């Protein structure tokens, strides 16, 4: 089966330009993985709930079973941000002087809608899913369009640089606080604790980033599969995206070329498109020939439900031309 080369690792990302069929192929691959006997979790981050539509069910952030061995979770970035803020609020209520609680909560509500909040919350969730991956033998991430995803996956790299800067600053503060307590006596330096909860929180955060990054960049555990259609813009975008992934050390698993026209298209319009396509397929070979690749035909109807996805998976082939059978 031609989807197998994309399911060699326990953590599989599907990405690509918007509209190339990531959601459908990620679902087909997850289903195929589950049919092969691996307990599989398909994670979608699409706020438009396309995965739910594909399987014809309502899905939520908690994994729900849609087929034998296959669970699906649909993560809504806005809800994730809300959940994180609520969690911080809970801790605030325990730790903040009562007169300040209302103010801190106001500040948190502002932060919830600030740029980057949903992205960070989404990453937080990804990291947690990867950490708690023990329940599943394989996790298939159906990611948002390329740019967003690349940013998301580069977060640990960027964030950990910033956090480590904060940590070294904070170390300086605690060192000076300790010196001040030594020369001024415990009474004058009241409120300066020997252990610093802020430093501890930052270090814990750093630890989680490092863990996530270790998983994302481990070629034994993670592979990123690109979905592309034989057209100019998706090819260019995918080519650039591969460069970005390489820069962040995220291993590429291969390339799925979707919506390949039938060999003998009927009608003049499709024949002309097929001629164009030949050039793009050659270009895909040229640019991405080093990666495992497979081709998915354009079907006469869009795949729906488990049966439709199984049919699609069975049509995946390693050669762009139709197999003569």
């Amino acid at each position, binding site marked *: 089966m031609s989807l197998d080369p994309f399911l060699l690792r326990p953590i599989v990302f599907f990405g690509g330009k918007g509209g190339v069929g990531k959601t459908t192929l990620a679902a087909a691959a997850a289903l195929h993985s589950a049919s092969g006997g691996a307990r599989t979790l398909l994670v979608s981050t699409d706020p438009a709930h396309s995965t739910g539509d594909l399987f014809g069910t309502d899905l939520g952030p908690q994994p729900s079973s849609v087929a034998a061995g296959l669970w699906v979770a649909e993560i809504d970035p806005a809800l994730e941000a809300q959940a*994180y*803020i609520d969690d*911080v609020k809970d*801790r*605030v209520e*325990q*730790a*903040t*002087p009562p007169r*300040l609680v209302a*103010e*801190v909560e*106001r*500040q*948190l509500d502002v*932060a919830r809608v*600030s740029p*980057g*909040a949903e992205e*960070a*919350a989404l990453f937080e969730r990804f990291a947690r899913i990867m950490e708690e991956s023990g329940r599943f033998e394989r996790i298939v991430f159906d990611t948002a369009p390329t740019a967003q995803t690349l940013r998301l996956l580069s977060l640990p790299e*960027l*964030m950990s640089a*910033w*956090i480590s*800067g*904060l940590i070294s*600053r*904070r170390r*300086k*503060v605690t060192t*000076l*606080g300790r*010196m*001040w307590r030594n*020369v*001024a006596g415990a009474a004058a330096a009241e409120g300066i604790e020997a252990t610093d*909860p*802020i430093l501890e*929180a*930052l270090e814990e*955060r750093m630890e989680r980033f490092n863990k996530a990054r270790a998983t994302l960049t481990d070629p034994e555990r993670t592979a990123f599969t690109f979905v592309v259609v034989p057209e100019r813009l998706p090819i260019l975008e995918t080519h650039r995206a591969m460069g970005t992934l390489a820069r962040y050390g995220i291993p590429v698993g291969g390339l799925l070329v979707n919506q390949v026209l039938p060999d003998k298209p009927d009608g003049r319009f499709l024949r002309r498109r097929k001629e164009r396509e030949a050039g793009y397929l050659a270009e895909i070979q040229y640019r991405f020939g080093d990666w495992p690749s497979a081709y998915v035909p354009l079907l006469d109807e869009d795949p729906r439900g488990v049966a439709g996805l199984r049919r699609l998976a069975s049509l995946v082939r390693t050669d762009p031309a139709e197999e003569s059978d």
Partner: protein
Amino acid sequence: MRSGKGRLSSDTSFWSALRCRLQSAREIYEGVYMAPYRSTIHREYLRQRDLFLILGFSDLLGVPNPVQFYTLELLPDLIDQFHSWHLRMGMEQPPEGGFRCC
């Protein structure tokens, strides 16, 4: 006997004078060396603490903070320091846009 008593009192006054000198020597040391040292440390401590506050909450000053989402969880521990900062800076009320801590 008088002389003995005198010797005794002169002994006492010798020791107390010595103690007195040592005490003032300590006060001089304290005033000349320790006090500036202590205040330098304290000032530096507060400066570093304020700097950390700026780094962690630069968005309040209009400077984008790429890790704002992650510094939120530090809020409960830092809001008191923010309060002491604006008092030290001579602002009775916290500046606009920041936490309304009082």
